[in-house]
């Protein structure tokens, strides 16, 4: 054992640790979700992880509802939920609501944000919004092969430092970067990597005050909710679906770890 190849010992390169489970998702240890802009390759990453053949296509808006699958990695069972691609989590179209509600109410253990490396700035808009809702995420910097073709270079370390989450370069169509992605997912899921997600900096003092005042009141009502500031901001903006969730107390039903919330 001690003499064996280093790569075999390193968790990152131990491919044998991945067992694709397809649709078998019983007794999962962790729930992870794939989110990102349309046409960034979420479904391709999903297929690589689960061994399923969810139809992929080169056009935005192909995935309209959630797809689910599973895999085992290092003896832990994971359930993966593939969400429809969206440009933001702000507006109220059906696909954006599916994505937002799952990240908010489904409380996945890890959210894998799949971004298009050739359109990083636009993709970061969504990534930053996701980081406001959840603090456990991994950024999959997909389509690196195309970025290279377009002479784009990305400093992953700087990006990771700014966002406060692991950043994994990948080319999912060529199955590159998947092992590293799995390792990062495991670290975040198991709590070995503690994310310090980026919070939006350029906000007025007045707005920040209003947010923290509301958030402290929300904390009394919904003590286990991890994303109080975000909920407070949505209330301030007058987001109807969130207002209803507060009014009915539905927002609190996730406190008890109740996973049967209907989305």
């Amino acid at each position, binding site marked *: 054992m001690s003499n064996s190849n280093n790569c075999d010992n390193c968790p990152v390169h131990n491919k044998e640790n991945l067992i694709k489970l397809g649709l078998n998702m019983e007794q999962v240890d962790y729930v992870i979700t794939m989110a990102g802009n349309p046409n960034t390759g979420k479904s391709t990453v999903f297929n690589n992880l689960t061994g399923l053949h969810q*139809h*992929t296509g080169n*056009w935005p808006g192909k995935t309209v509802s959630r797809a689910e699958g599973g895999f085992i990695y290092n003896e832990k069972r994971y359930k993966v939920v593939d969400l429809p691609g969206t440009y933001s989590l*702000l507006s109220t179209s059906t696909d954006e609501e599916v994505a937002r509600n799952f990240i908010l109410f489904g409380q996945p253990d890890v959210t894998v944000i799949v971004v298009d490396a050739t359109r990083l700035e636009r993709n970061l808009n969504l990534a930053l919004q996701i980081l406001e809702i959840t603090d456990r995420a991994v950024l999959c910097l997909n389509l690196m092969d195309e970025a290279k073709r377009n002479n784009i270079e*990305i400093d992953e370390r700087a990006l990771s430092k700014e966002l406060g989450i692991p950043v994994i370069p990948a080319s999912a169509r060529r199955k590159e970067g998947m092992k590293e992605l799995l390792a990062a997912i495991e670290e975040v899921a198991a709590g070995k990597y503690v994310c310090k997600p980026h919070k939006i900096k350029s906000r007025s003092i007045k707005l920040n005050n209003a947010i923290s005042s509301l958030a402290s009141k929300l904390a009394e009502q919904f003590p286990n909710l991890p994303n109080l500031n975000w909920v407070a901001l949505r209330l*301030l903006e007058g987001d109807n679906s969130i207002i209803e969730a507060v009014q009915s107390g539905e927002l609190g039903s996730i406190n008890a770890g109740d996973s049967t919330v209907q989305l």
Partner: protein
Amino acid sequence: MNDTHLKERENILSEANKARWDLGIDLHDTVIESIYEDASRIARKAVKQKGEKAAYALDLRIDKIVTSRWLGFPIMFLLLALVFWLTVTGANYPSGLLASFLIDYMHPILKGVAASIHMPWWLDGVLIDGAYLAMAWVIAVMLPPMAIFFPLFTLLEDLGYLPRVAFNMDSLFRKAGAHGKQALTMSMGFGCNAAGVIAARVIDSPRERLIAIITNNFSLCNGRWPTQILIASIFIGGLVPAQLASVVSAGAVVGIAVLGIFFSLVVSWGLSKSVLRGEASAFSLELPPYRPPRIWQTLYTSLIDRTIIVLWRAVIFAVPAGIVIWLVANVHIGELSLAEYFIQWSNPFAFVFGLNGVILLAYIIAIPANEIVIPTILMLTVLITGANGVGAGTGVIFELNSVGDTANILHAGGWTLLTGLNLMLFSLLHNPCSTTIYTIFKETRSVKWTVVSTFLPIVLGFMVCFFTTQIWYLFFV
């Protein structure tokens, strides 16, 4: 206890309401702006662009051509025609092979086995002459064209051509008062209408989504392509010399598909000017970069994902339909079978529309799956003309070794070019299959709109066939 919680929650909401007034009406914009600001700052730190975006420039050049005002549509039609031509010419030979194996070879063996175990004649008829032959027919006719058509279509999709189609079509749909993304759901409908109806979820506005759902049936689905291709080969291809036949047949099928797009636009326009009144909403469509398709992966997924799944569905529906066909052809009341009663009764009505009773009965039996229309028509035609020497006997779906044999049967059944043409039109314009109807109900949750989506196309179909027939008689008879 609950009351105090409720009150607390109301308090939070009223505080939010009050603060919202303090923060001003442009709050939403400033929130988004600050996100964009941070995103752009982070991107500046992390991204370095070395030199030219060579590949991107090429993409732009290609897009200039395929979305250009003059070349966009011709290129679209040419690509579509190419795909059909490859399907028409490529599917014929493997179809013949499958047919001779499943029917000429396997069917007598099964009959022999049934006889040797003394199976009662009616059970043998229902199972082997009904269920088995219907299934065999569907496999022989459906599998080869699907195995060619789906991978080709998926390659176009992988390449990134579909969003360009949507881009080209957008202005037309907008003029019709519908959403530009309807071009995408329409394209999905060319594969399967049920899938197209589900895909309409990408459209946000309920009004426009409803229009997209109602008009999706005007996209010829894979269950109807074989009908179109076969009838076009017999009646349209038969008009020209043999060398031109496949090109002309493919052209005719493209013509029907384009007519479907035309109806989709006209009906969308009609709906948005009447019961679903409203303005088209704007949307942004991202033209994704062209990506070299992964040929083997595409072949694999389109074969497994689409071809096998769609074929499986067709087989599942063909088995009970085969049983029904055998029964209506073999259950007699007095002199005539049930099928003959219906056909004789409906013939006068059907002739007005240039169709016949056989076609109407076939479309009733084929409500679960359009795939079995042609087998049903052939079987019923043999039954009423009493044509001998083909097939195995009364009420048996038989296989024909060539398109020529099929043509002979239909001509014997009194079919003319007009009947063929009307069948192609009616195949485009009739009620959706039962799966699609159920999907429409699930998506709209409305009996009213499900009924509209079901009957609107069939009313249109009868109108179009009626006018075609009357004009035909005016000029050619």
